[in-house]
């Protein structure tokens, strides 16, 4: 019985207990991770530092040097009705799968998240930050605002919702007769034909910091 309380045995027991408790407690998931990170990063949302004007996104889409990644986090129905050219649809739950890809982005990499308004996109932004801290921004006003700016009223796109920004409820509030996905003109407006908008440019390229290595 005395042998059970030898310091080595106690020590080993303690280590096993600590490890077992850790396995049960678990490492933080993305939502939890964001809670831990919020004090440092939430101000970017509060001060709108990461919400970019549709014109800025259009500019990025036409910039050959930028490695642009557009995540569209809306559901399939809205995606099929209208989405931006070169955007990718992804559900919030699938964001963790993007870790390696985000870590592999170059210094010229810029990520933009879009949803109908800003609600889902902001949630996605938080999770992406918790996942890999990429150089990520949110389309201000979402697809609703984009279509207010660049949408052409025609047979397919049957009218603007000019009050869309007043009632953000996450739905696509522009009526479309046909679901043409990225084949609407507004999916890739011609930068030279649309009226120029004045906006505050917020996208900055980040210097890559390699979080690995050490011995010189």
């Amino acid at each position, binding site marked *: 019985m005395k042998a059970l309380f030898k310091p080595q045995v106690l020590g*080993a027991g303690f*280590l*096993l207990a*600590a*490890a*077992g408790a*850790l*396995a*049960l*407690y*678990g*490492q*933080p998931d993305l939502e*939890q*991770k964001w*809670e*831990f*990170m919020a004090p*440092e990063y939430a101000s970017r949302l509060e001060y709108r530092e990461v919400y970019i004007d549709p014109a800025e996104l259009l500019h990025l889409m036409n910039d050959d040097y930028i490695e642009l990644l557009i995540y569209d986090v809306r559901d399939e129905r809205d995606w099929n009705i209208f989405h931006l050219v070169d955007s990718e649809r992804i559900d919030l739950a699938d964001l963790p799968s993007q870790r*390696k890809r985000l*870590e592999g982005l170059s210094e010229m990499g810029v990520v933009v998240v879009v949803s109908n308004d800003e609600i889902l996109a902001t949630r996605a932004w938080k999770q992406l930050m918790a996942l*890999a*801290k990429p150089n990520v921004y949110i389309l201000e006003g979402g697809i609703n605002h984009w279509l207010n700016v660049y949408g052409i009223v025609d047979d397919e796109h049957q009218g603007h919702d000019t009050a869309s920004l007043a009632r953000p409820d996450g739905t696509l509030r522009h009526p479309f007769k046909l679901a043409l996905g990225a084949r609407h003109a507004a999916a890739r407006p011609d930068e030279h034909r649309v009226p120029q908008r004045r906006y505050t440019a917020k996208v900055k390229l980040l210097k890559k910091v390699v*979080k*690995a*290595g*050490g011995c010189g």
Partner: protein
Amino acid sequence: MAPFDLVALLGVTGSYLVYLGIGFGFGFILESSGFGDSRKLAAQFYFRELRVLKVMFTAIVVAMLLVFWASALGLLDYDEIMVKETWLWPGIVGGLIMGVGFILGGYCPGTSLVSVATLKVDGMFFLLGHVVGVLAFGESVGYINEFWNSSYMGRFILPELLGLDTGVVVLLVVCLALVMFLGFGWIQRIIYGRGDPE
């Protein structure tokens, strides 16, 4: 959340003092544990003394538990700490060479510094050889460049390799360490008829 930008917080000089302090603690602990003595280090490879195994694996396990508990509690951001990237084959071949160097030379780089600090001549010769080896590498790396940069797997961690939760892997590592302590001790008793004095 830690880790913090040391230079931003303390300035370059301040950050250098921190590293100096950490190094001081490292050297102090190594010497106090007898790692400035090549005979004690080499004895590990004959099962005569298990100091190296015990210190190394205890340190790894303790640090690992602290790191991942801190991460779980949101005190430390695991994504921000330096995790050695994996170049698999250069690492393995380099490790084999270092194993041979260890049993021939009786030290590893860190312990040789401690040995030199206590004026051990064999440590000094080792360190001199270390410098020569480092220079030799620098001059010849051009020829083996392809190999040296091969099998790159980036920041690749055991939970990813094994497809297990981090917490489970931590538990497995603790078990591995304990099994190794017991197993090596058992081999020691078979060969020498006694265990380490502690």
